[in-house]
């Protein structure tokens, strides 16, 4: 085992130990395991949310896209800021309702708001379908870290299996409290590593930011602005808007709001989170520094750029620390995703279908589902060839379809009808699935249309179909208890 892998193994051991330590003194009921007993203050919820949001996607995917695509990568820095603005108004409303009714998952929210267990099952299946690509990208990232820092000893496929096993062990022993504590270490490390790399590498190889960007512009003219076609300004704006809308529709992000002690937590977070996001800036700088120093990484291999450049610039021990930071950025969100996926499947899909009454059965099943989902993720991570960012974009398109039905349910009574909400979600998901399966884009379907329209993220079409279906079906169906509601 080389020094880099030793350092990584050490941090993995620390994460395991923290997971075990954090569960001391808490009976592991379903509520304790999944929502931490609802006792987290601003700092803990901040760390949990940051832990979920700053993932392998930002660390390897963000640098990979800056390396491979240039300016379009900046979209990653934009949608969060808009999402936090939305969160200031949205999350307190969700939290109040969820806390009053002691909800566990996102689907519970829909079930109770629309008085429809069937809608809960639909939302749950959507959530799990969206979680899978997100989990796959964490495992892919973990695999990249382990195989790259092994300096060729461990093959990428073997690295994915090792990472999957580590993730399953971690989730099984810790639950959400372990995630929050590990998030503390992870955040300190990722901050230090990302800022360190983003400051040091451009200075070392180019003498500063200005010379670096001048060199890139010289070698690849136009790389630092959005292109006129393809990932153009239309693509950029539509992708930012869709991602901002989908941000809190992720089941794990939605459910992590349940862990807060009071609604004020979210308003404070809306102030701090945008600034914390600026870490991404340094991740981009690292990706840009790699363009001319480790050239030739094509397609999905661009995700390797950060580690390749680190290996070029630093001794093995330091590469190990960078890899360990990467490991934690995958482990924390990966554990939340697995936990959420397993809880949703057990509680919101299988329980209503099987008609179980006992919480302990559900809890036991949720734990058993963790390795099953992880194995599915590992297989997809090994055999699917997609880069990290497109994986997340697919997940976002799936999950954003929940937004209309959710937003229309925030008042005293839902504005959409039960059947309308279902029709909207199903129609939207059908479009997303069709587009993803066929690889169709608007530019391919309508080549003669102006690129300002055909460059739009295809998720816009799915969302439009969703809203139209929701409106039409809501217009002709009316829920009995909502009949007196004037605005429906």
């Amino acid at each position: 085992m080389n020094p880099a892998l030793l350092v990584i193994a050490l941090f993995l051991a620390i994460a395991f130990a923290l997971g075990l330590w954090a569960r001391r003194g808490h009976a592991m009921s379903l509520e304790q395991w999944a929502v931490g007993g609802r006792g987290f203050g601003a700092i803990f919820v901040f760390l949990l949310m940051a832990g979920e949001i700053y993932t392998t996607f930002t660390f390897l995917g963000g640098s990979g896209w800056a390396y491979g695509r240039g300016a379009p990568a900046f979209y990653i820095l934009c949608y969060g800021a808009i999402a936090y603005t939305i969160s200031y108004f949205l999350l307190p409303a969700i939290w109040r309702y969820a806390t009053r009714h002691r909800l566990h998952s996102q689907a519970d929210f829909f079930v109770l708001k629309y008085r429809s267990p069937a809608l809960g099952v639909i939302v749950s299946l959507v959530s799990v379908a969206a979680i899978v690509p997100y989990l796959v990208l964490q495992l892919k990232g973990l695999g990249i870290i382990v195989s790259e820092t092994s300096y060729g000893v461990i093959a990428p496929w073997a690295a994915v299996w090792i990472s999957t096993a580590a993730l399953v062990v971690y989730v099984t022993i810790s639950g959400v409290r372990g995630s929050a504590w590990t998030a503390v270490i992870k955040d300190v490390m990722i901050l230090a590593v990302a800022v360190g790399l983003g400051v040091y590498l451009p200075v070392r190889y180019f003498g500063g930011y200005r010379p670096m960007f001048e060199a890139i512009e010289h070698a690849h003219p136009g790389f630092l602005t959005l292109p006129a076609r393809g990932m153009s300004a239309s693509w950029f704006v539509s992708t930012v808007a869709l991602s901002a809308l989908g941000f809190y529709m992720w089941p794990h992000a939605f459910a992590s709001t349940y862990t807060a002690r009071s609604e004020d937590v979210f308003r404070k977070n809306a102030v701090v989170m945008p600034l914390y996001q600026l870490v991404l800036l340094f991740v981009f700088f690292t990706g840009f520094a790699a363009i001319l120093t480790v050239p030739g990484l094509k397609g999905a291999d661009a995700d390797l750029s950060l580690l390749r450049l680190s290996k070029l610039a630093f001794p093995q021990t330091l590469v190990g620390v960078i890899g360990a930071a990467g490991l934690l950025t995958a482990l924390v969100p990966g554990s939340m995703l697995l936990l959420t996926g397993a809880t949703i499947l057990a509680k919101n899909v299988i329980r209503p279908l099987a008609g179980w009454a006992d919480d302990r059965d559900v809890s036991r099943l949720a734990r058993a589902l963790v390795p099953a989902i992880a194995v599915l993720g590992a297989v997809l991570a090994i055999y699917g060839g997609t880069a990290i960012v497109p994986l997340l974009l697919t997940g976002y398109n799936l999950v954003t379809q929940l937004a209309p039905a959710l937003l229309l349910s925030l008042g005293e009574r839902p504005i959409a009808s039960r059947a309308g909400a279902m029709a909207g979600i199903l129609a939207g998901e059908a479009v997303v699935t069709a587009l993803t399966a066929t690889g169709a884009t608007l530019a391919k379907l309508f080549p003669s249309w102006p690129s300002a329209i055909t460059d739009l993220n295809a998720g816009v079409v799915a969302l439009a179909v969703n809203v139209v279906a929701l409106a039409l079906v809501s217009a002709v169906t009316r829920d009995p208890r909502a009949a007196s509601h004037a605005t429906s």
Partner: protein
Amino acid sequence: MPGRSAAPAYRWIAVLPPLALLVGAPLANRVHLLVFGVPFLLAWIVACVVLTSGVMALLLALDRRGGEPAAPVAPAPGREID
């Protein structure tokens, strides 16, 4: 939605940062310059992110000060008093 109409007008400041990003970014993309050593588009986005935080801080301060006369959101049973 009862109570929502009572939301104070200053809350509209929240739409400024998203507008600066969604409308401003395509315009900023036309400027081919380095500002503080980084591409203008990136500098614009960073400024918008900082603006977001500032606007949210202002909103929080205003909400806390003016929480008494007009309840900021529809009050719900079981809401904590802060």
